């Protein structure tokens, strides 16, 4: 087992732990920390298997953007309560069954595929840029449209709430 394998295993373990924390914790702060851990370990996996650019984007967009947003939203929603806010779940066997079925199904289907050897090279930022402005330009452009959509959508949603 090489060093990179061990790092990868650690990152994956951190990812699962972060996910579990996000799903199960009853404490707001822990939720944010767990989600952050999850997102960072995803970035770490990206860094190890695919590309540094992707990892940086993940850190910037998620940890820098989404996580702050989540925190912000939590503060707005819970600003008027003094005591530590609790989060609870409606644990039920049906949801657990669905989740277990999804997990089992995915592992059963995908594990055989993972054994095949793939390319071990990682993508350079230049290559990604060349792809996005080359063969992937349509998707890239449409992602631009989507960002405009998201901007307008936020405006509409927030104002819609105020209009009342």
């Amino acid at each position, binding site marked *: 087992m090489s060093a990179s394998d061990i790092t990868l295993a650690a990152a994956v373990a951190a990812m699962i732990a972060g996910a579990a924390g996000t799903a199960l914790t009853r404490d707001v702060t822990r939720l944010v920390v767990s989600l952050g851990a999850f997102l960072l370990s995803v970035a770490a996996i990206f860094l190890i298997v695919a590309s540094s650019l992707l990892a940086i984007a993940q850190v910037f967009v998620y940890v820098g953007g989404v996580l702050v947003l989540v925190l912000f939203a939590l503060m707005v929603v819970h600003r008027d309560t003094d005591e530590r806010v609790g989060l609870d779940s409606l644990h039920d066997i049906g949801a657990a069954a669905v989740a277990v079925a999804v997990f089992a199904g995915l592992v059963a289907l995908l594990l055989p595929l993972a054994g095949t050897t793939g390319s071990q090279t990682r993508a350079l930022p230049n290559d990604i840029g060349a792809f996005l402005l080359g063969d992937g330009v*349509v*998707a890239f452009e449409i992602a631009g*449209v989507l960002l405009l959509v998201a901007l*307008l959508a936020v405006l509409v*949603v927030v104002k819609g709430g105020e209009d009342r």
Partner: protein
Amino acid sequence: MNAMVPAVVLTAAACAMTGVVAGLIADMFGRRTMALLLVASGLASASAAGIWRLWSGPSVPEVGVFVAGGGHTSLASLMYALAAASVVAGVGTLRARERGVAMAALVALGAVLSHALLATTDVMVLFIALSGLAVIGYALTAGRGTERSIAAAVRYLVQGVIASGLTVYGLAIVFGLSGGAPDLLAARETLAQAPTAPALAGMALVLAALAFKLGAFPFHSWVPDVYGEADRASVAFLGSVPKVAVVVALLVLLRGTAFASGGFAVASQVVIVLALGSLVFGSFGMLRERSVARLLGYSAIAQVGYALLGVGSGDAGIVATTIFVVTYAVAVAAAFVGLEAIGAQDPRWDGSLAGLAGLGRRAPVTAAAMTAVIMSLTGMPLFAGFWGKLHVILALVGAGRTGVAVVAVLAAVVSFGGYGAVVRAMYFEDAAHEDLAVRSSRTMSGSGYAVVVLVALAVALVALGVVPLVSGVARVYAVFSL
């Protein structure tokens, strides 16, 4: 590079985007009506661009990221036209909202995304367009700003994020199995040789994502919700344009790409199962509904069932599905434009069936046009919807699925109860309160936009229903065949 994106796609999208930008600028100067009309005219010129392309000669299908040309061009034109119709019809409502222009802009961008979705074989484009349309759906629902509409948006959002997660996973599988090639057309060989079970699972997840977007059973829960609570003019867009795009995308994916090869024959059976569930659930759901918009939501579930039946019935189903979805899209857009018109003429209308009572006398033009629209949705001969249903049923029979066709016919019979209730309320029931003077004085300015659009769409439905009797279906609908 440009060769892969046919010029017509760019032209149309550029027209629509220009309209959006112009509209947003006009909004900054406080010219809201003008801004809305600018957005609409951008969409109209996008539609015209497609028509002009058709006019200027026989189109050769070009295959690339977009499978454009022929039927796709005319379908795109139709989608832009319907989006324009929804914006124009909503002028009265939208200009009263502070972010009305942004909502109209979302409709226009939704048309662009639908256009992208319409003919793509690229999983990246597929994913981004689907997500964008979902975001537009949430925003337009919440944008009405009532407590109920926000609650509906929240419910829709929670379902949507699950669907979104499943979509990415499905695409991950498909993309991985096709050796990291985003274009499913190019990946035909690779995907066909990939292990069957994971490939099928990936396809099933993509199928489920599209079915969710269509509101097919059992992914239907958001449909009556959103149809009932969002602005009526917004639903005129949400219920029609993305539906055309997704149904055609489904056709392209299942019949034109890697999924069309041998191992994927099960897809049509799965689609038929979903279709039957939708038909039964939607048709019966209509019977108990007392809100017209929600009733049309259940009707949408049932109608998606017919579209999926067409998708599931082999090669003959391609033309049938296209014809069906075109006629349905026009009819459902017209129906919600009609509700917008009724609401604008009588702001006190609570959206219930009972509130329609006596409409035949109060607003004869609106009621007559609405009746034509409902008849088309029902599938009565002489109206466009008839041809759609007829072709789907013939395609089913042609594919040897006579039993399914019988169920489809029976479901149609059940749905008569629901559609009949609307017509019945308008003509055969007396209004509880008849104070016409008050009513007319309270009529919102701007109801004229909706009425004009409604009449235009209703005339189109009748024309599409009658003309084929004279000219033969082939000539009229050939424009829309893929």
